[in-house]
């Protein structure tokens, strides 16, 4: 079965990102597919590559990136939510005249169209948030 996930909360603040990741990992281990994880609202903070996490603690952005690398999960950050919160990929950074970008590897910037598409194409869309 094909799942899509929507994550609406940032890492280390709310359990949503952890719950969604654990669900994704179990679903993949059981042979299901995760077609996309869409990060919206404060969920876009899951996609920063500048987070420095103590070594004995879970690194949430890297956990997501590993799912993308090993299972081809499409990690999409909402462009409008991301720009407001200072999450930019290289192209967006240049376009807005910023001197840096911070989107983590494995993530990409997208729009709500991708969320709607997931709702249509996936067998189930699960929402994790507050």
């Amino acid at each position, binding site marked *: *079965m094909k799942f899509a996930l929507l994550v609406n909360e940032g890492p280390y603040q709310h359990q949503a990102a952890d719950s969604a990741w654990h669900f994704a990992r179990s679903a993949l*281990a059981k042979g299901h597919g995760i077609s996309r994880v869409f990060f919206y609202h404060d969920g876009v903070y899951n996609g920063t590559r500048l987070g420095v996490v103590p070594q004995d603690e879970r690194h949430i952005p890297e956990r997501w990136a590993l799912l993308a690398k090993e299972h081809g999960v499409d990690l999409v950050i909402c462009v409008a939510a991301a720009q407001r919160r200072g999450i930019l990929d290289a192209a967006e950074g240049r376009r807005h005249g910023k001197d840096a970008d911070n989107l983590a590897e494995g993530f990409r910037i997208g729009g709500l169209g991708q969320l709607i598409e997931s709702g249509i194409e996936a067998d189930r869309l699960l*929402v994790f948030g507050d």
Partner: protein
Amino acid sequence: MSTLHLINKSPFEKDAFDSCLRHALPGSAVLLIEDGIYGALRGTAPGDCLEQATEQQRYVLVEDLRARGFGPEALVTGVQLVDYDGFVDLAVAHEPVQSWL
């Protein structure tokens, strides 16, 4: 197929739990995750409500129960424990999956 309701909030903090139980149709399933697990504790008013909601299948995510310092003995009767694999199975068996955010 019937709905899987996901509750992730404590009934002592928000009214998602009450709203869900009022709206959940017979035959649907309710899974308590995150702070939602507080709705299944024995000796509480929300726990009594959940115990009486016998027309729904009721589940608690064991990882989130354990993370909050509780075990199965703290739960009201009629509630089943599931792990994340069980969560996935429930999401497969039910459609849609409705989060009460």
